[in-house]
């Protein structure tokens, strides 16, 4: 295992509070909610494991040497798939239940069930082919088309398919959550400063940097 202090990016002399702060920041960054439906979620999951292990290791060492209770208990049950969910944050999306569950809800047909499995395993071409051959373009079909688009990076189309799914089946919580997320424009996403994420938020905020910061000439 790597040096746990290096993993959390703090010196060995850091106080318990500093260790905890560094841990919480990293946990927010690599949290499943920040990598929801992200094609790189598996890499984030690895990171999360590493951070949790490092934090637990530091706590173990510190409680062993008899400092006052270590940096504050064990890892927060942050994690991918199962486990307790994150409670302390501000605007994280709940639901969807992490990656293990992903698109695992029961489908109205066996073909759409296969589409969900293909999306979960990252095989988008197969999911697309199955959807293309499925003639009943019902709410779930639209939702899954949206999910494939999102993973491909086709954000605008994803949103439009989710909208159609919600119009066809307004009471469905799964479709609603997906659309809500698209309509929030990732505004709850991690940002190092903790301030809100977004083009409009930042551009409208005069506290943000003035434009000249970005167009500063190099050769002056």
């Amino acid at each position: 295992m790597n040096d746990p202090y290096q993993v959390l990016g703090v010196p060995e002399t850091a106080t318990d509070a500093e260790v905890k702060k560094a841990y919480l920041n990293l946990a927010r960054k690599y949290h499943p909610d920040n990598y929801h439906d992200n094609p790189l979620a598996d890499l984030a999951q690895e990171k999360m494991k590493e951070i949790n292990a490092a934090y637990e290791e530091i706590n173990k060492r510190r409680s062993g040497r008899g400092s006052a209770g270590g940096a504050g208990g064990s890892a927060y049950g942050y994690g991918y798939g199962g486990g307790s969910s994150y409670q302390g944050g501000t605007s994280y999306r709940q639901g969807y239940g992490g990656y293990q569950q992903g698109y695992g809800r029961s489908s109205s047909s066996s073909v759409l069930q296969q589409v969900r499995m293909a999306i979960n395993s990252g095989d988008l071409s197969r999911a697309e082919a199955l959807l293309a051959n499925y003639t009943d373009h019902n709410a779930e079909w639209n939702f899954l088309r949206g999910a494939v688009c999102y993973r491909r990076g086709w954000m605008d189309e994803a949103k439009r398919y989710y909208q159609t799914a919600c119009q066809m089946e307004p009471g469905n919580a799964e479709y609603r959550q997906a659309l809500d997320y698209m309509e929030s424009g990732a505004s709850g996403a991690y940002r190092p400063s903790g301030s809100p994420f977004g083009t409009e938020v930042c551009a409208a905020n005069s506290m943000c940097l003035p434009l000249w910061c970005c167009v500063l000439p190099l050769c002056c």
Partner: protein
Amino acid sequence: MFGYVRPPLGQLPEEEQARFRAVYCGLCRTLGKRYGLAARFILNYDFTFLAILLSDGQEREAPCVRCPAHPLKKRACCPPDGAMELAADESVILAYWQLRDGVADHDWLHGLKYRSVSKVLEPAYRKAAAARPAFDESTRRQLRQLSELETEDCASMDRAADAFAALLAGAAKEVDDPVRQRVLEQLLYHLGRWIYLVDAADDLKKDARSGNYNPVALRYGLKDGAWTPESRHDFAQTLDHSIHMMATAFELWDFGCWRTILESTFYTGLFYVGGAVLDGTFQTAVRNRKKRKNVEDAT
């Protein structure tokens, strides 16, 4: 590649500004060394960014050298390495095909400047294409697809942006480490999507006048290149989703000494440039800066 990707240099410490300048000068020098003076003129911020993303993140000594653009004062300049050469080769290929695209888009008279510049760049392009045949092939394919979509007035901005995004993602194909390659592909895909969409938004008014293809105007049915509040909001959100994808990819690889510059770009710089483009103030700001710089240079 249009020069939209900018770190908020004014907000960064002097040390980071100097580092960015050194890689900018380093890429220019590498272009000059490998391809001659003409190739130096393709240099821009976006290509500099490509060089940073492809770099191994190791801090290197940047010796001070004189260059044709600044004969009086020596400048710190990152030495060429494998990553810098890769960035230079890919930049030449991208720049060349974009010029050819300009030739195809215009009639004989208006295509004149594209034709003459691409002629000048042709020997450099031949050499670069021979060095990176796979990237040349994929760039050519994606740009052909893009021009087909433009001809048929494709109203899906995702589809049009995809052609350009996939092209940029192709720049990661030459990277060896499989994790790094996945991270870079995702990052470059969304960087390409963002660049393409921001460029289209920046051209809304111009394209409305000339009647040229504009995927953003078609998607939202904009008249005279003016945003409606709803379409503007919706468009900003779709940009934010791409920035989020870039930021999440960025956090999964250790970019070494470039961490601060990249972090400030993905979490701040892109928001600001996008916001200025939506407000219609970006072009003016860049022009004013250039003007002021020319005055400073002259005095």
